[in-house]
């Protein structure tokens, strides 16, 4: 049909010659002159505004929905209520008491689990015997979700601090092990060959060549392990919580205080952000030699 139409009128409808300069065909020059690229300061500010827009809109909608009574306060308290819950937690000193306890658990578990994972990863990465001994069993254990271990750990270690600590340790060993092992094994064999040419002993090669080169991967492992430590902390604090943020959540749950529950969840989230920032800072300080590459 369209063909028929075209057929009839084609000789009267010769398309005008393409104006290449105005129309941007394939072979035209495109302008990359500096004045056309937005100034970095301005685009960054706009970027921030853009990113802030959606969360701000959600908060506003949430607050309005609560204020006009569309959502029951027992189900979802308003942002203002949650701020008030924070104020209450701080005024009563609950938050100040809970934070060090929870952080202490996470840090202790991460320290023990991370160090163990690091040591196993180095051992398996650097020595064939270590790989033979540990790699297969660890790869098998790794497939068990650590949350599934909680009931077992309760029967083994009871419901006190030890069980909580063990859950966090179990969660942090594997990310640390895997990334350390991969990092050590990922070092270019040509570098190791060069080190042997220049007379470095095995110990010197490990210390001066392999470890520094594997450090980025090891730090990625630490970052994953930190995230896992936080996740494990949340799970572990559900076990017979008598202190820590888990205790606040548990109490609030029994008292039907959803505002305090959400405040507690936000504390966990803030811990996650803080850990991530800390890890990025650590990477920045520990890896000054990495080219700072970013795609826009």
């Amino acid at each position: 049909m369209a063909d028929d139409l075209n057929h009839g009128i084609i000789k009267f409808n010769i398309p005008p010659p393409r104006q290449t300069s105005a129309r941007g065909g394939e072979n035209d020059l495109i302008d990359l002159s500096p004045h056309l690229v937005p100034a970095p300061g301005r685009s960054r500010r706009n970027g921030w505004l853009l990113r802030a827009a959606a969360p701000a809109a959600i908060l506003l909608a949430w607050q309005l929905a609560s204020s006009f009574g569309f959502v029951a306060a027992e189900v979802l308290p308003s942002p203002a209520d949650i701020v008030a819950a924070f104020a209450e937690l701080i005024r009563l000193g609950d938050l100040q008491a809970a934070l060090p306890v929870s952080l202490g658990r996470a840090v202790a578990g991460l320290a023990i689990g991370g160090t163990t994972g690091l040591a196993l990863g180095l051992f398996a990465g650097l020595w064939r015997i270590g790989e033979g001994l540990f790699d297969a069993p660890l790869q098998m254990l790794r497939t068990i979700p650590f949350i599934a271990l909680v009931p077992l750990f309760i029967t083994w270690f009871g419901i006190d601090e030890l069980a909580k600590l063990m859950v966090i340790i179990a969660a942090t060993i594997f990310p640390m092990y895997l990334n350390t092992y991969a990092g050590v094994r990922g070092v270019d064999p040509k570098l190791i060959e060069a080190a042997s040419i220049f007379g470095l002993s095995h110990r010197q090669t490990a210390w001066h060549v392999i470890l520094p080169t594997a450090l980025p991967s090891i730090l990625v492992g630490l970052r994953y392990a930190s995230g896992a430590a936080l996740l494990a902390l949340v799970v572990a604090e559900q076990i017979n919580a008598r202190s820590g943020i888990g205790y606040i959540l548990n109490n609030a749950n029994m008292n039907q205080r959803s505002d305090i529950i959400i405040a507690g969840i936000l504390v966990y989230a803030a811990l996650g952000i803080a850990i991530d920032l800390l890890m990025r800072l650590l990477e920045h300080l520990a890896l000054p030699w990495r080219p700072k590459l970013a795609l826009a």
Partner: protein
Amino acid sequence: MLSHDHAVELHGVSRVFAGRAVLDGFALTIRPAEFVAILGASGTGKTTLLRLLSGLDRADGGTVRVPRRRSVVFQEPRLVPAKRVWQNVVLGRRGTPARARAEAALTEVGLAAHVNAWPKTLSGGEAQRVALARALVQEPDLLLLDEPFAALDALTRIRMHELVGQLWQRYRPAVVLVTHDVDEAILLADRVLVLSGGRISLDVPVDFPQPRIRSGRDFSDLRMRLLSELGVAVH
């Protein structure tokens, strides 16, 4: 015991990979301070020979005698990215004398300004000069160059040729340069070997004086001869 008049002694050397003899009954002697270039198509045993000389690989039979102090400059710089340039030059050595030595060696290759730089911030030519400084710091009696200029641009390569020539004149190690570049071999070496089928098929001295000019008669005659030995038709 290494005799005084030889820096390298190879006799009846064989190296077999998966049933194929890459080197078979191979013999080569190199005098101290001699600059030998080795040409050959891929798969003729150049790399195998260099790995035997460097000690990275062992022969399956025969005699391999090399100086205790050997250095290699590889085709890639092979610098540790997490160590500063000077630390790479004296990798595995300790203390302030190490740093002073590194600085001296880097000054000699024209990189005094990059002593504290990170390897990933260097250009290809600069990184290769660091590798050269690292090789020199060892004060080698045998310097092995495994296509060290192959990845460099033409201008940088010319500068590197000059630099290597100067450093060889000053320190007089025996040098084995493996290369695909016939001109490079003639420019730098005292003696050019052509390898084919795991044996030396041509062994010629380059006896015309330095500096050698590519347009010279001797130069082009030798180039023709080497190219035809390498199986490249020249008209």
